[in-house]
């Protein structure tokens, strides 16, 4: 990835997530987990070797103007990833990373749900979500 600011944003969100992960409140740990998965999803989507500009939806007959959904300056050469070595469809972004992240989003939702429920149960059981306090209770 050569886009400095993109990489910077991803890393900062990741760093904030890690900071939250190290905190004492279980609830904040869950939030930290959430932030980390967001930043990683972002990294996967933006990473790679692509310079295309089109949404990977095929048209019956490829009409240049109709297919350009986001033909703005912003997309020009920055994100718009496209598959290299593709003679036929040189302008599409890589659909594979999208498919991967799609799955990742849903899975991280499931994980968050379980973490939250655990936090809830711990809170019900011990009346606190402080990790250090729980450790003290355990003895």
């Amino acid at each position, binding site marked *: *990835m*050569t886009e*400095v*600011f*993109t*990489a*910077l*944003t*991803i*890393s*900062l*969100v*990741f*760093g904030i*997530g*890690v*900071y939250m*992960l*190290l905190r*004492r409140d279980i609830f904040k*740990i869950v939030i*930290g987990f959430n*932030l980390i998965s967001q930043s990683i999803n*972002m*990294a996967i*989507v933006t990473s*790679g*070797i692509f310079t295309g500009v089109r*949404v990977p939806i*095929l048209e019956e007959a490829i009409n240049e103007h109709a297919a350009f959904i986001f033909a703005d300056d*912003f*997309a020009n050469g*920055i994100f718009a990833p496209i*598959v*290299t*070595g593709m003679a036929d*469809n040189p302008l599409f972004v*890589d*659909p*594979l990373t*999208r*498919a991967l*992240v799609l799955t990742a*989003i*849903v*899975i991280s*939702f*499931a994980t*968050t749900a379980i973490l939250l*429920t*655990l*936090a*809830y*149960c711990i809170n*019900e*059981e011990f*009346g606190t*979500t402080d*990790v250090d306090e729980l*450790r003290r209770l355990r003895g």
Partner: protein
Amino acid sequence: MDLIYFAALIVLLPFVMTLAVPFAYKLMKEKVGWFAAAIAAVCFLLIASMIPSTMGGNYLSGSIPWIPSLSVDLAFYADGLAVLLGLIISFIGILILSYSNKYLSKDEDLVRYYQYLLIFMGSMFGVAFSDNLIQLFIFWELTSISSFLLIGYYRKTKESVYGATKALLITGGAGLFMFVGFMFLFAMTGTYSISEMLTNPEMLASVKESPLFTITLILVLIGALAKSAQGPFFIWLPNAMEAPTPVSAFLHSATMVKAGIFLVARFHPMFSGTVDWLVLVAGIGLITMVGAGFFALKQTDLKAILAFSTISQLAYLMTMFGFTTFAEPGIGVPAAVFHLFNHAAFKACLFLLVGIIAHELHTRDIRKMGGLRKEMPVTFILMIIAAAAMAGIPPLNGYLSKELFYESSVHMAEALGGGVFYIIPVLAVIGGVLTFAYSFRLIFKIFTGKRTEDPDVPKHVHDPSLIMLAPPAILAVLIIAVGLVPAPFVDTLIQPAIHSIFSGAAHLHAALWHGVTPAFIMTMITFALGILLYTQYDKIAARQVSFNEKHPKISFNYLYNTMVDNAFSFGSSFGGRLQKGPPRRYVGIMLFFIILMVAVPVGFALASGQPLFSENLIFKLALSEMLLFALILLAAWGASVLPQYVPMILSSSALGFLMALLYIYLKSPNLAMTQLCIETLSTVMFLLVIMKFRVKEAIRPETNRVRLRNSFIALCAAAALFVMLMGTDLFPAFESFSHYFMDKGVELTGGKNIVNQIVVDFRGYDTIGEISVLAIAAFTVYNLIHSRIHKRTAADTDKSAAVFEEDSANRNPDEVFSNIIGEEKK
């Protein structure tokens, strides 16, 4: 019908029918045992239909490829030995499963009980009919596992858990040694097929000449000995008696413990006739026989007496299989097979009778029993028959095979050249004497003498119903029938089995009267010494008990317990040392290595002057993009610093929605859609959980030092990720294979949205996996919350809990909400 399907049907039927047990239970309630018995009966008939072919000395085999690349097949093999074992399993199975109908009360977990028993029966058929070492091993361990489940059937009692664990550790663990032995066999012969190994003379010769011969024999024997509770492995069997008595009768006397013997018989052609075989098999057998018989004397629990007698009787079998001389084949193998059959009959019968006694008297302590003759006349008669058969009294079946045992021991001694080897028949007689003594103890102590007055024993007892009496009665009839007219049984069942083990073995001549042979004289000596020993019974038992009390450390049980305890304490201290902190400690360790993973290459790159980043870095930033990134960072920052839960959550979900916007910029409408839905859902979820939070006291904020440390770690992690991301361009990229989806997508799936195609069609299985993850997560969440509710209702009687219930019921959610915020503010 092709044999492979026929044998596979026998093996698989019990397994498949396991699934039907719950439905049968709905229909038949506590009579569900008849359903299981019917399955056993079907298997019995199927196996019995093979007898004609095995009588002709043929065997049937067939296989279907299973893992061809490893030459592992699903192979079945039905020779005389397998059919004999299969018939014993299924016949005793019918009796046990019918008997269980009355033995277990209807409040017990019957479904689980019969399911376990059926699984066991299927696995046992698998052991008998397998023609492939790997397959044999799998079924072998399955019998260990089902035995574990059955011993631990009474989950609540500590003893049964201990017994179950012990049995699994010893038999299952030893099975692994056997597995290594099988691997050696494969290395020597190049095949997993048992029948091929045993019938190919070249392979047999190559095994006998191999330098690995002894170690292979030892490894395979460890598995067999542990299963049959021989040698030092005997300790699990007495503890296994915690299982319900029908289970003990089925698994731990008649069938499962025979698996070890079966294995020895199965590999007899391969290993026998060598010094190693004689010393290991016959030697361990003789020692176990005398030792276990001796220990049986001090037992006070009825089932423990039977357990030790089982060990001792199985040792007879081991010894006889070991008696295969170089010079002449001897009669060891025929005698062993015959005794295997006889022992199954009388020992199962004894266990069933003990089950009746324990069921009626509510105790198994033999010291509390006596004088039951008049109250339980039928049980008394049956007990006389079964115990006398075990003691070897004519004209019962035990007498015939014991004669043969004595005869084979004399043969062996003579074949070895006499002299000191006459110790073998002497040991055999000692074993017989001990058997005689404890067998008669079972009759006289329980049924004759004075009726004991014990608070545990009911005042009036009686014979049980016909359902419980019939199975032992059938076995008793069998015992007498085999004793009086052995020929039909020998011809149809025993002789084919002998033939399949050892075709050179002498023909079995079982008869009540052979004339005055050495064996006959030995029997007479046994009876005389047995009566003498019986008069000294209590004195010897007391001597043993006092010895054990004085030297508690001299026992295999002590060794086992110390080993297991040490393993547990080592495991817990190791785990305690490794996993002792709050989660951040683990996170810290993981992050440390991640940072190291980046820092080390970076250090090298700096030292050698290589570039860290790609040369054509892009610093260009569109205004719209800048705005988006700034908002994302702001939201993330907000999520981390806002002190109260609700603003924190809102900030975190703002990040999620901004992410959806970013995905739109990145030409991924699918992602944006998904992200929007998921983010909405998780915001709702977060808020729901927060609503239910009861914060007793606010969590103390971290000290500045801790914050500084955490920030430093986080910064390092962020820097590591940044370097990693920026460095990716330095390496040549893999060519994406997405063009395949683009080229073929429309043609193959008919869809035009390529992301959709991938998710739904090309990687459909991944999506199924994803859906299952969601489903599992949903179940987990439901169960976690459900168990909480359960607990709370259970604690309702508790005063404080009741107050809380009332408290939370009266407050509406919004109040709770604002309360929490208020508390936080304080």
